[in-house]
Every structure is written in structure tokens, then in C-alpha cells.
């Protein structure tokens, strides 16, 4: 059964239509209940639109077009799934938690932007989706209206705008000499550009802000925890992957070698991965800890792309690994974040522990099934020798286990609390199931995962030393319960930034305001005089120049 191609743009349009519901006062109450349906067209499109289906709206700005390829399908499905679960979760969540600011409208608009991305085939449509998503999710971050949320929102916004300021000129520059503005045309024109490094860097780092690459990551551990649980789930599960998708679409992976860019990205990604795992260990807020864990995983994905920029031959293996990891991480992180909004019952603790074990790569669980793909990349013959990739990945495994262990023990079980059956637990349950069954359906999504039980059993017998190391660390911790020697507050680097003191800024603004008040009086008149005289002088001097 094949679905028509118009479902691709429609999957982004539909949430927007639902966002407009409050315009009809009678329907305003029902908006929250319709949230899970909003991502339905996208999910259907992901499953049933045939690959290669294309739709172009000829009269639109840049001939907007959508097309579905393998990468797009994978992103479309896990994104739509994540949003759907978060929408389902919201119904009961907001019945129990009195709503603070408006939630459904920014949620739907951000969803619309995010669902525009996987199938967008031209730069403007892609950028539109990215901007809509980024700006609308600010509404999710500040939803609670607490001072911390507002602060997180401001920092988030500053970084979003900074990202836009890099992406926008990068794209404009990218389309400057391209024949058309499709993403593939931009990708292929890089090779013709005599010096594309500047534009590619703009685009790479502009999108890296969303993915939380060091040193642009500090907004993320502030913003993701500030949002209500369903919003954190989509922020960390779905939206964080948008930057990744942008690189796959726009950066010329596998086309030519970019050693400087590739190496600097690898180094930054390595710092990102290691740093966030270590800082994550010192966190006391479970959502902040999860946010750091997301940073770590995103760092890992970027670390896979870096070598492919140096060595074009690596591109297929590294893209395959990144896709597997992105889907895997999206499913797990959505479920984990959804869990943070539930009462701490024993059932929850048990399931969360299982999920964490899977996430950390304990054999036989779904995380272990991603190992072969990653190993295929790590042991690829073309891996540059100056990048100790295998070691970095090993240490990441070593640290991920204690990190998630700490997450589990941070949520103290409360025997009095019961897990009620409502849409929250329903959405959470479905997400966990999907995360744990990942290896079973991954091949049908054309992900490079083989559900090979034999490999898993062998893996159990000859286990990874880093995994054992991680378990050992947990054991040591459980035995001695050491107090951590330091605590790094969420937002780490932010606290090191020199305080470009707000006092100084407001003083400058005050001066400007005084100047403006003065302009209203006589000096305003003088401004007229000055400009007029300047004009007269300019024009007359021109005559002197040309009149002869």
C-alpha cells in the first residue's frame, strides 16, 4: 500500500492547523486532547509513502519541494513517534499538573517545524522548518514561568539566534552560485566553490548549536530540564537530532576531504562527549543529568562524522552508524524523559533501570545491538590513525554506566506512590516497548542493525572490558558511597564566562536613551540641519567633481 506524496508536506501542515484551533472558541478546550493525533500524518507518511516520492510546489518562493529518501524516512519515523508519544503523555500530565503558560500552541508549532525537516528537499524549506522549530520551542522552555525557566529561555534564545545568524548567511552564500536551491544542488556545488571552508563552517557550527557541540552546549542542560516532561522528551529525543540531519543534508560528506574542519570537529566532539559525561556524573537534578547524557551521545555522533570529513571513504560507514545511533538514542531518551514526570513508584524504578541498562549497552538488551555497526566504523581501514576513536568510545561506555546508575538512584522510590493507568503511563509504556524492541524493527527501517542473537551471546561470553570497568565503578560506588569532590552546576561553561556585566550594558543603553531624549529637543533640529548640510555638501562636491 502506497500513500500519496502530498502527505509529506501535509505532515508538517497538520500540526499547524491544530495550532490554529483556538481561533474557534468552541474547540479551544479540545486542543490538548488532539495533541497525539497531530503527528499521525507524519507517521503514516514515514511508513507508507514510497521512497523516492517527490512533490514540488512550483509557484512557491524557492520552488519548495519534499522528497523521501532512506535517511529522511528514518528521521521522519522516529521524530513523528517521539512527538506522538509526547502528545499522548501531555493529556494526563496537564490534567494533574496545573498548566502554567500556554503549552499546546508552541508544542504544535515546534512539531510542525520539526516534521518539515526530514523530507524537505530545498534549503529554504529546511531552514524554515528549523527556524520555526527553534523559536517555537522557546515557548516550551519558558512554560513554567519560573525565574530559572526564564533564564534558561533567554540563554536558549540567544544561542538559537546566534545559530540562525550563522546558518542564514551560510545558506545564502551556499545558494549564491548553485544552480538551484535544492539541498543536493548546494551539496554538490561545494566542490565547485574555490574556497567553501567558510560557508561550510558557518553551516556546520550554526547547526551544531542545536546539537549541543562544545562550546555551544551550555544552553542545553538548562533548557531541557526547565521544560515540562513531555517537552523535554521531544527536545532531547527529536529536536536535538535536527542539527545532525542538517549536516547529513548539507555538509559534503564523502565528496572531498576537509582535514582542518574534520579534525577540529573531532576534537570538539571528543571534548563534548567526555566532558559532558564527567559533568553529568556530578548532577543532582535527574533531568539535568539526562541532558548531559544527551550531550554525550550527540558528541559521539559528531565524533563519527568528523573522521568522514577527513577521509571521504569513511562516509558510508559513518552515516550508517550515525543513523543507528540517532534512532536508538531518540527512542531511549524520549522514554527516559517521559519517565521523569511520573511518580516514583517501584514499577517505574524497575523499568527505568531496565531502560538504562539497555541504553548503556548491557548485552542482550537493545543497546548492545548497535555495537556491531559502531565497531564496523571503528575498525574501518580508513580511520585516521591520529584519532584514537576506539579508546574514546570505550571510555564513553565506561562512564555511561555509572552516569545512568546515578540517574536511577536519584529518583528515590516511594512505596506509597502508585503508577496509575493514564495517558502518561500509556505513552511511557509504549516508548519503553519501542526502545527495547528496537533491534527487531530496526532492519525494516533500513538501519544497519542485525538482530543476531548468536553475536549477543558471544558478546556476553567475551564481554567488553570497558563495560566491565563501568560495572566495576558502579560496584565501587555502591560499596564506598564516596562524596563527589566537586559539583558543577548545570550550564557549566556559562559560569566561567566573564560577566559582561549587565550593569555595563544597561549603562550603555541608558546613554543611548538619553541621547534619544536629547534628539527630541533642539539637537533634533540640529540633526536635520546637519544632515541637510551634509547632503548639500555631498551633492555639490559631486558637481565639482563631474561638472568639469
Amino acid at each position, binding site marked *: 500500500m502506497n500513500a500519496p506524496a502530498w502527505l509529506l508536506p501535509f505532515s508538517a501542515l497538520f500540526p499547524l492547523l491544530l495550532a490554529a484551533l483556538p481561533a474557534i472558541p468552541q474547540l479551544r478546550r479540545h486542543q490538548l486532547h488532539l495533541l497525539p493525533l497531530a503527528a499521525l500524518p507524519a507517521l503514516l507518511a514515514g511508513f507508507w509513502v514510497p521512497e523516492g516520492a517527490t512533490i514540488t510546489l512550483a509557484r512557491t518562493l524557492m520552488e519548495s519541494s519534499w522528497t523521501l529518501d532512506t535517511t529522511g524516512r528514518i528521521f521522519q519515523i522516529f521524530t513523528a513517534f517521539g512527538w506522538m508519544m509526547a502528545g499522548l503523555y501531555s493529556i494526563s500530565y496537564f490534567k494533574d499538573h496545573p498548566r502554567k503558560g500556554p503549552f499546546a500552541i508552541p508544542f504544535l508549532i515546534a512539531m510542525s517545524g520539526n516534521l518539515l525537516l526530514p523530507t524537505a528537499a530545498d534549503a529554504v524549506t529546511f531552514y524554515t522548518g528549523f527556524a520555526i522549530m527553534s523559536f517555537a520551542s522557546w515557548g516550551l522552555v519558558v512554560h513554567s514561568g519560573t525565574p530559572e525557566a526564564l533564564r534558561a529561555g533567554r540563554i536558549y534564545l540567544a544561542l538559537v539566534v546566534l545559530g540562525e545568524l550563522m546558518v542564514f548567511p551560510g545558506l545564502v552564500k551556499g545558494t549564491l552560485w548553485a544552480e538551484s536551491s535544492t539541498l543536493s544542488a548546494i551539496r554538490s556545488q561545494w566542490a565547485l566553490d574555490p574556497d567553501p571552508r567558510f560557508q561550510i563552517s558557518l553551516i556546520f557550527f550554526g547547526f551544531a548549536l542545536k546539537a549541543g557541540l562544545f562550546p555551544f552546549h551550555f544552553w542545553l542542560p538548562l533548557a531541557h530540564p526547565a521544560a515540562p516532561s513531555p517537552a523535554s522528551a521531544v527536545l532531547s529525543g527529536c529536536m536535538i537530532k535536527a542539527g545532525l540531519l542538517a549536516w547529513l543534508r548539507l555538509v559534503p560528506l564523502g565528496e572531498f576531504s576537509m582535514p582542518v574542519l574534520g579534525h577540529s570537529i573531532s576534537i570538539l566532539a571528543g571534548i563534548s562527549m567526555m566532558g559532558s559525561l564527567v559533568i553529568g556524573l556530578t548532577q543532582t537534578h535527574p533531568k539535568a543529568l539526562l541532558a548531559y547524557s544527551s550531550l554525550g551521545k550527540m558528541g559521539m555522533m559528531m565524533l563519527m562524522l568528523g573522521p568522514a570529513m577527513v577521509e571521504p571513504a569513511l562516509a558510508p560507514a559513518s552515516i550508517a552508524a550515525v543513523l543507528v545511533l540517532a534512532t536508538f538514542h531518540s527512542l531511549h531518551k524520549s522514554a527516559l524523559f517521559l519517565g521523569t514526570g511520573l511518580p516514583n513508584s517501584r514499577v517505574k524504578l524497575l523499568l527505568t533501570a531496565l531502560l538504562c541498562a539497555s541504553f548503556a549497552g548491557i548485552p542482550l538488551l537493545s543497546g548492545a545491538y548497535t555495537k556491531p555497526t559502531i565497531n564496523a566504523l571503528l575498525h574501518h581501514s580508513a580511520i585516521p590513525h591520529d584519532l584514537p576513536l576506539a579508546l574514546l568510545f570505550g571510555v564513553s561506555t565506561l562512564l555511561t554506566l555509572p552516569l545512568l546508575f546515578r540517574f536511577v538512584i536519584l529518583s528515590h522510590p516511594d512505596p506509597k506512590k502508585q503508577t496509575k493507568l493514564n495517558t502518561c503511563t500509556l505513552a511511557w509504556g509504549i516508548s519503553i516497548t519501542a526502545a527495547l524492541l528496537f533491534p527487531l524493527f530496526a532492519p525494516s527501517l533500513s538501519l544497519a542493525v542485525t538482530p543476531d542473537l548468536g553475536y549477543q551471546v558471544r558478546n556476553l561470553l567475551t564481554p567488553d572490558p570497558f563495560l566491565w570497568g563501568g560495572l566495576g565503578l558502579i560496584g565501587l560506588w555502591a560499596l564506598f558511597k564516596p562524596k563527589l569532590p566537586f559539583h558543577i552546576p548545570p550550564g557549566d561553561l556559562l559560569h566561567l564566562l566573564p560577566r559582561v556585566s549587565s550593569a555595563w550594558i544597561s549603562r550603555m543603553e541608558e546613554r543611548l536613551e538619553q541621547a534619544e531624549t536629547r534628539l527630541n*529637543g*533642539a539637537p*533634533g*533640529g*540640529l540633526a*536635520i*540641519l546637519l544632515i541637510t548640510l551634509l547632503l548639500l555638501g555631498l551633492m555639490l562636491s559631486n558637481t565639482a567633481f563631474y561638472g568639469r
Partner: protein
Amino acid sequence: MPPPALLYALAGIWISVIGLRSVLVEEHFFRKIVASNIFGSGVFLVLVALARRAPEGPPDPVPQGMVLTGIVVAVSATALMLALLGHLHDLEKPDNQEDPS
């Protein structure tokens, strides 16, 4: 431009500069209004002088038409501003204070 017209033009420019200066520098609005009228007169004088484009024959009627229109606009604008100023004076009597922001 024939000499008398040139004289008019220069005088007009001088008058308009005086007027403009006062419009821009004076603080009180009533003085500004008077000054704007002086500025207008200067401008009109220049325009009338410019109307004599050739030494012989009648002057060009178009600039004169412009001056007439300009006078109408200036007179009505002056009347409007004077009325407004009086109105503002009434509004700003002490018992009618606007809130300070």
C-alpha cells in the same frame, strides 16, 4: 538669472536660514511656529525669484503656482498648530496633569 532676481533669491535664502535656525534651536513651541513662518517666507521668496528664468518676458507661472499652494499649506498648518498649542495649554493645566511616564 537677472540681477534683481538674484538679489531676491539671495535675500530669500538668508531669510529662510534665519527662520530655519530658529525653528531648530528655539525651545518654546510658539517661537518655533513663528520661525517656521519666517522660513516659509524665505522659501517662497526664493521660488518667486526663480520664476524669472529669462531676463525678458513674463515670469514662469509654474513656480508662482507652487508658491501659492505652499502659502495655503503653510497658513493652514500654522493655524492648526496654533489651535493645537492652545488646546495643549488647556490640557496641561495643573489640575489636568498627565501621568509622568
